[in-house]
Structure formats: C-alpha cells, structure tokens
C-alpha cells in the first residue's frame, strides 16, 4: 500500500516538484478566492479592506450631513423612519439571521418598548422618567419578556416556533387594544394602554435634563443609536457567542455535541433581539409621541422582515441597505407623479439591463411602443370609451401616455379584470424563455402599464405598496434568497 501521491508517475524532468492536482500542490499554491467581476467586484474588494470602524463610518458620516441638505419633513419621512426600521431590523437580525429562529411575533417586542416607555414617561400615569433611566429599564424588561416567550419555544422546531410567536404577536395587539378596560382586584379599573386609541402624549426624550424636540435632534439620536447597536452587534457576531449562534443555525444537533448549549443560546438570542426591539420601541414611541396598537401588527412585521431579508439575513450592512430601500421607495411612491416615474423608469432600466445585445433591446422597445400605439388607435376607433380618460401622474409623460395606454372612462371593472389577467400573464412569462419570453413580454408590459394607470396608481399609499411588498418577498425568495448583501448559503435539506 503506497502513500497518496507516490502512485502517480512523476514528470520526467521535475521529479521533486509536487504534482498538479495533488492536494499539497493545491494547498501550497496561491490563495484561491472568489472574485467578482467589474464594478461590483472592485467595490466588494474595497469594502473588505476597510476595518469595521471604517465600514460603519461609510454609512454614518455621510448620513450625519443629511440634516444640512434635507428639509425637516423630508428628514422625518425618509431619514428618521429609515433609521427606525434599520434598528428594528438589527434586532430581528439577531434572532433570524444569527440564530436562524423564525420569530413572527417580533414586532410585539417593539410594541412593548413603546408602550413601556409610554407608561414611564407620559401623562398616562403622570410619570415622567428621564430617558437615560427609562430606556434601559424598558429594554431590559422587554428582554425579559423575550426570554419568557423563548422558554416554551425551546422545544419547538422552526415551523412551530413561527406559529407560536405569531400568536404571541397577535395576543399582544389584542391585549393593548383592550387593556383600557381591565379591572385589577386591588387597584380597580386601570387604563394601561389607552385601548384602541393608543397611548398618547408620550414625552419627548429627556437625556439628563436635555430635551430632544426638533426633528434634527431626533435624527442624531437615532443615528447614534444605530451606530451603537450596529457596532455592538458586529462584535457580538465575531465573538464566541456569535459563532455559537451561527453554529446553532447551521446544525443544532452538531452544535450541541460540539459544546454549544443550544437551548440556552436560543433563549439568549430571543432575549437579545427583544431587548434591541424594546430599546428601539422606546425611541419610536417618543418619535411618534404615542403608541398605537395598529402600529405593532402584522403590517410592520412584514415590513421589517422585508428589510432584513432584502438586505440579506446575517448582514448588518444589509439591514441598513434594506431599510433604505424599503422605507424610501414607498415614500417616493406617495406622490403619484414620482410613482409613475419610478414605475416606468424601473421597467425601462430592467429592460436595458437584461435585454442584450443593444439592437435586440431597441427592437423590443420599438415593438412595445408600436404595439401600444396600435392597440390604442384601434381601441379609440372602435370603442371610444376605452380611451376617454386622462392619465393621472406622469407629469411630462402625460402627453405621450395619453396616446399609448388604454384609459377607459369607467376603469374599475376593466382594471380589476385586467389585474387578474396581468398576474396570469406575468406568471406565464416566467415560464418562457428566449424570444418567446420577449414576445410575451410585450403585451404583458402593456397590460401592466394599463393596470398601473387605472388601478394601482390610485392606491400608492395603501394597497399597492403592500402588494408590491408581498410580491417582492416571493420574487426575492425565488431569485435571490440571500438578499442583496448576503452570501449564498449551502444547506443540506
């Protein structure tokens, strides 16, 4: 029996060198790395060279200049809420990203923080604690609640955990909606949470006597909070606890056998995530000067999940990016004009990027325009009511749109029907390839424009946003489950 390597014939002229393909040669050769090409690759390499402090700085320092360039109301809508979402996402990231536990009641912990802070610092009970005391107390209390919720969950495998936590979240909303009518045996009637009207008049943050009341000040408080939490989580992830969490996520059984006390770490993850949620909730309650039951329901939960998943579970930078996208895009969509530009612009960009080479792309665009004009002309000639109305948003696009898109005078029924047909068409397009796909895409895009102009654009603040969010989640899982900045995971099923 001979040792590996000496079975292979050695090249006649180089008997002493290790052989290609033999493990030692591979090991001693230059390092082998995955390098992404092009601009993305350069950015990735530069990013990897930055020390952690630098990476945080890349986000925080430019952000610090925002109040100088944005109006107060824009600052509130875009920047402050982005930071709030990012903070919530960081906490969720600990539970879902690091430890791999699907917690669908997470948003209740944020609610605990908000209501808790409200109980300690509002006119509800007449207590006005200062922030440096109230916030840690609330955060710790919420962490404790997270621990309690985690206790029955120790025995539960992923799916069951999801359901139990979902129920807990619903229980919380139910509770705060009705907690203004509880009678305690000794204290009599107590209004804990203001019921469905919520807890109003929460104090502004009060740090050591210094009151935070302008938007800019709140922005800086949130920015500092984000930087602090992000840094803390980064170090936590690199520590033995972070490795233990990741091991637990990978393979709980193997982790347990490799000295990781799995149950204890699950509880720790829950408590940690809940603590961060409570902390964020307290600040959030103060920003909104109130805590309202509807805020802590499934809508916000899905939003924060989208933030974490879009950015890439387990990645702190991903959470920041996800928060920026998930908050700012719908805000942009609120104005119908912006929304239209965004809609058509996005479609155009995707076409330009995905349809190659350039002559094919041009042919496609030309075909799309021609198709539209043709259909429009045909419709105008035969059923004038189909083209009678005017496009809503669009601004300078209004003119050409009027002649391209079908705009019936009574859009409701047709648009509803078109919506369903559109969904079917989109699903069909995903099943086709090559030129067939391009061909099918023409009427599909035209239909999409029609549905947009007649139906979706009216609800950009409400249903449309949420529809897109749901579709985003489904599409993301199909196309890029690791999110924008996550690393593709290998899993043994």
């Amino acid at each position: 029996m001979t040792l590996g390597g000496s079975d292979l014939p050695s090249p006649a002229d180089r008997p002493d060198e290790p052989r290609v393909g033999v493990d030692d040669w591979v090991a001693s050769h230059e390092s082998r790395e995955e390098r992404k090409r092009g601009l993305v690759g350069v950015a990735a390499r530069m990013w990897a060279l930055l020390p952690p402090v630098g990476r945080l700085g890349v986000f925080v320092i430019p952000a610090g200049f925002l109040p100088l360039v944005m109006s107060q109301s824009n600052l509130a809508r875009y920047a402050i809420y982005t930071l709030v979402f990012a903070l919530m996402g960081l906490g969720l990231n600990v539970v879902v990203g690091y430890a791999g536990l699907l917690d669908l009641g997470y948003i209740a912990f944020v609610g605990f923080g908000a209501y808790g802070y409200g109980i300690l610092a509002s006119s509800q009970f007449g207590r006005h604690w200062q922030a440096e005391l109230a916030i840690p107390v609330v955060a710790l209390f919420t962490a404790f609640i997270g621990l309690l919720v985690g206790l029955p969950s120790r025995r539960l495998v992923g799916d069951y955990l999801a359901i139990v936590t979902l129920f807990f979240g619903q229980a919380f909303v139910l509770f705060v909606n009705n907690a203004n009518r509880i009678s305690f045996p000794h204290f009599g009637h107590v209004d804990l949470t203001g019921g469905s009207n919520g807890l109003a008049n929460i104090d502004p943050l009060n740090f050591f006597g210094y009151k935070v009341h302008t938007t800019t000040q709140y922005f800086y408080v949130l920015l500092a909070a984000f930087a602090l939490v992000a840094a803390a989580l980064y170090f936590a992830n690199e520590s033995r606890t972070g490795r233990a969490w990741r091991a637990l996520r990978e393979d709980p059984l193997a982790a347990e056998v490799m000295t990781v006390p799995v149950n204890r770490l699950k509880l720790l993850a829950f408590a940690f995530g809940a603590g961060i949620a409570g902390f964020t909730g307290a600040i959030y309650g103060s920003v909104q000067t109130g805590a309202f039951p509807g805020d802590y329901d499934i809508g916000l939960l899905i939003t924060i999940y989208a933030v974490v998943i879009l950015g890439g579970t387990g990645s702190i930078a991903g959470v920041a990016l996800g928060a920026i996208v998930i908050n700012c895009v719908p805000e942009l969509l609120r104005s119908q004009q912006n929304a239209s530009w965004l809609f058509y612009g996005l479609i155009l960009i995707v076409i330009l990027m995905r349809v190659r080479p350039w002559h094919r792309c041009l042919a496609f665009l030309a075909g799309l325009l021609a198709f539209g004009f043709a259909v429009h002309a045909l419709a105008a000639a035969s059923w004038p009511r189909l083209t009678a109305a005017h496009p809503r948003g669009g601004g300078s696009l209004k003119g050409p749109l009027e002649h391209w898109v079908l705009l019936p005078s009574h859009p409701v029924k047709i648009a509803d029907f078109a919506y369903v047909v559109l969904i079917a068409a989109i699903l069909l397009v995903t099943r086709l390839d090559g030129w067939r796909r391009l061909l099918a895409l023409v009427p599909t895009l035209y239909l999409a424009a029609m549905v947009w102009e007649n139906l979706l654009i009216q609800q950009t603040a409400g249903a449309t946003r949420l529809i897109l969010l749901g579709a985003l989640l489904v599409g993301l899982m199909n196309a890029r489950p690791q999110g924008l900045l996550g690393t593709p995971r290998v899993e043994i099923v």
Partner: protein
Amino acid sequence: MNWSLFFDLTVSGLTLGSVYALIALGYSMVYGILKLLNFAHGDVYMIGAFIGWYALHALGGPVSPSVSAWIAVAAMFVAALIGCGLLGVVIERFAYRPLRNAPRIAPLISALGVSFFLQNSALLLFGAAFRNYQSYDLIGSRTFSFGNLYFGTPQILTVSGALVLMVVLTVIVARTTVGKAMRATSYDREAAAMMGIDVDRVISVTFFLGSALAGAAGVMFGLVFGQVYHYMGFIAGLKGFTAAVIGGIGSIPGAMLGGLIVGLGESYSTGYLPQGSTFQNLYVFALLIAVILVRPSGLLGKAAIKKV
C-alpha cells in the same frame, strides 16, 4: 346552569369547528407532504368567500336569484371549490415549487409574501367594505333540532357540508391510487419519486384538495356569519392552523378533531370565560400553547423519530 346558553354555544361551536376543520385539513395535508406551513392558506379561504359572493351576484343576488336558491348555493360552492383549488395549485407552482430544495426559511417567507399579496390584492380589487351574503334572504332560516341542539339552516348546511367533504377526502386518501400516492409522498418524498410516483402531480393534487376545502369553508362562513372582508383570512387561518397543530399536524382525523376543539373552545370561552368575547383569540392561543407543551406532536399526531 343555563342549559339553553350551553346548547346555543355548542351549536355555534360545532358550526365554527366545521369551518376550522376544513381549513385545518388543508394545512395538515400540505404540511404532511411538504413540511411547509402554508401561511397563504387562510387567504385562499378568504378568496373562496369572495368567489361565493361574486358567484351569487352573477346569478342575480341573494334577494332574487335567477335560479332557485339551492341551485345558487350549489353554484357558489362549486365555484369556490374549483376556483380556490386552482388558486392553490397556481400558488404552489409559482411560489413553493421553485423553493423545494431551498433552506426551510425560504418557502415560509414566500408564503408570507403570497399571503400579503392576496390580502392586499383583495383590498385593491374588492375594496375595504364588508360584503354581506344576506343568506337570510337567500335560503331563509328554518330551525332543525337534534335533541336540545337547535341549528339554523345555514348552520346545518355548514356542519353537514363539512362532514360530507371530510368523508369524501378520507375516501380519496384511503381508497384511491392518488390517495395512496399522497400518503407515500408524505412519508418519504424521494423514495416515492423512485417508485414511479409523479411527486409534482401529487403535490399539486394535495394543494388542489386542501385549497378547495378552504374555499368551501369560506362560502360556509359567509352563509353562517354573513360578512366577508379582505382581512378575514388572517385570523381564520391562524385558528385553522391551531386546529391542525392541536389535532396533530399531518394527520387528517387530527385536523377534524382539532377543528372541533378549537371551534367549541372559542365558543365556550365567549360564553363562560371572563371577557370572553374580546379575548377569545387569546384563549385559543393559550389552548395551543398548553397542547404543544404537553404533547408536542398534537393529540392524534405521531412523534417522528429522526435517524441521526
């Protein structure tokens, strides 16, 4: 002891329980075969309720339908059964099948996305206003009595309809080739594929059946309780899932039993427990936690022994 209240609550509980049992069956079957929690299931139920409403109005509406009332009801059911069945198949095909080999969290998130998408599409298309089945106008309400239990027409329709559907499902699963294939796939998907079973088709059939049942449940709910709205699938879905877990997820008789337990539990808690009507969902939740802690695999479920 107010017996008439008790019997009223029992009737109500049985009716609700039948609805929940039908929803739970869909959850249980899908989980048994794919180990997937189909969060979108509750919204399929909601779509079923709306399909029923639209079918009714296509036939002239509850007050003066163009066909006899019972044919209208049958048409509503058929439309919901087929429509939701197809919807379930489409959802599986596009949101779950591509993720069959992805990490477990991916189809769950996808399911959440589908749920959200359906809910808000319904909001977009149907508006936020509640639709009313006006079943009193449609089928009236005679009282049927079994001993001390008094059922109104929609309620007896629900309970008996659910029973019929459950019997049909049990027969399909236990006696037909497709049913056998479904059971085989739920035990070991790979082995089933290697034995010549078209796993994709079997899974599609499972989704069709489960979703069809949910659709029927939606119509039943509409007939009994009157109001349908875009958000109704969420809580009903949760309770249906609770029922599936309590009964033992993956077990068909378990889903039926669980449905009854949840329905009766909810009903009795509104009557007997403090502030029951507001907090009924909380009590159901507590029931779920209790069952999971005491018997994690549910009442009729089998604890799976994994080979390490």
